């Protein structure tokens, strides 16, 4: 369970980025955090992970207040897929990156190997196993970054734009994988179709505040609400035909 109570935040520049945010994500829930560029989605995630200090309000992860002393316990529970996969992978090869977290958490070598192989197969990435991180494509890196987090088997997963840069096939694999994961999940994305098929609930951020919080099916179908906050209906719900290229 993740609880944010009256959280406000601003970077050093002083301009408030988040204002008085309160919400609770219950165990097993899959919540989509949506909003226009710069709405503060990534900031919310970084606050939950303790990567940014929460100076106003309180965040709790499974009843543990996120703070300097509790970081280790909090982070043990959370897996985070970064918005920029380049910054996620720091070992030379995909394989070494995948075993990093399990070994740190004391999982045995054999168990880690089993996990890694099972995951690579599930995500269709066997071919990437021993490839060098800086020699794989953007989308491949994204898939590998997701794999490194899943190898951790965290209790809760935060994903910042998990499907960005993926081709339709890999996007489908990620969507299916997310749907099968039993963990509590918080996902940000501009891919509202993906949010629609993975999340039961959506929180809409706008101007640093929560503009809406409710069932995904309702919020993502509310054309006026979305458009008022610089967003559009998911493509699958847009009846209008795509304007075609004309000479």
């Amino acid at each position: 369970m993740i609880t944010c109570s009256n959280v406000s935040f601003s970077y050093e520049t002083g301009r408030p980025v988040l204002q008085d945010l309160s919400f609770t994500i219950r165990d097993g829930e899959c919540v989509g955090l949506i909003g226009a560029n710069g709405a503060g989605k990534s900031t919310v995630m970084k606050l939950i992970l303790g990567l940014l200090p929460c100076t106003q309000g309180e965040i709790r992860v499974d009843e543990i207040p996120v703070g300097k002393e509790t970081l280790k316990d909090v982070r043990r529970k959370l897996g985070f897929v970064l918005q920029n996969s380049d910054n996620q992978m720091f070992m030379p090869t995909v394989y070494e990156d995948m075993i990093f977290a399990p070994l740190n958490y004391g999982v045995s070598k054999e168990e880690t190997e089993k996990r890694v192989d099972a995951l690579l197969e599930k995500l269709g990435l066997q071919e990437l196993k021993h490839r060098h991180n800086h020699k794989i494509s953007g989308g491949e890196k994204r898939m590998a970054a997701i794999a490194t987090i899943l190898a951790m088997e965290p209790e809760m997963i935060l994903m910042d734009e998990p499907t960005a840069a993926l081709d339709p096939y890999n996007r489908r694999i990620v969507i299916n994988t997310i749907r099968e994961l039993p963990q509590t999940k918080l996902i940000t994305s501009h891919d509202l179709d993906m949010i629609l098929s993975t999340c039961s609930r959506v929180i809409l951020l706008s101007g640093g505040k929560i503009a809406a919080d409710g069932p995904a099916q309702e919020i993502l179908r509310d054309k006026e609400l979305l458009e008022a906050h610089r967003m559009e209906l998911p493509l699958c719900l847009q009846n209008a035909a795509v304007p075609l290229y004309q000479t």
Partner: protein
Amino acid sequence: MNKMEMALHELAEMDELAAQRSPVHQLHPAAKLIATVIYILVVVSFHKYDLGGLIPMVLWPVLLFQVSGIPVHTCFYKLRIVLPLVLAVGLFNPLLDRAPLLYLGTIPVSGGFLSMLTLMLKGTLCLMASFLLMATTSIDHLCGALRKLHVPGLLVTLLLLTYRYVGVLTEELAIMTDAYHLRAPGQKGIHVSAWGSFLGQLLLRSMDRAQELYASMLLRGYHEHFHYAPLRPFRGKDAVYLAVCAAVFVLLRLLPVTQMLGMLVV
């Protein structure tokens, strides 16, 4: 590829060399590390005029190149920047020490000339040995071995992170130079007027990235000490390798091998 990407490529090539398979690669990293350290110590300990005694020490790197399948030219190519510096060290010796020390037939050879050659050979051998260690052992295994040998964790982590940070810095630099040249066609290098902002941006960007990478490590359970790629246990063959290497190095140092060979021939 711009120059930076090339540098990055070379850095990655070292990782790739280290990922190959050969009897040398498969030795325990600690055995290789200790053997290399002993080798370097022995090489350095030769007297400055003892060129003859030093020459047989060439055999070890030559043998390692053969067995590990790493091409010798790769070594010299990668060392092309440091090698001249090392070679330059003894360059003034012939001027300082001109007393003839021995005669090749009737040609006098000065002590300075001899010590210059010895110093150059010592430098080259030490570089080759270090290169061979790096080319047959991945940085993670090397760090793992250092930890096994009780080198303080902080130092080892520093070594590893520095190695990684160089990669991050070069990668950012590559991206930025590309972006610059795409909008400054026909320009050679980066214009002086842009140096300030370019460097500042580079520093900020690479620091940001390094910070985020570090966060990503923390989020995956990293706490002050690395769980380096698990090392396999130290086996009998590693001990044998180490013992044989150490024994041969010490013998080569203590016995006048070149003279003995010379006597055999004569």
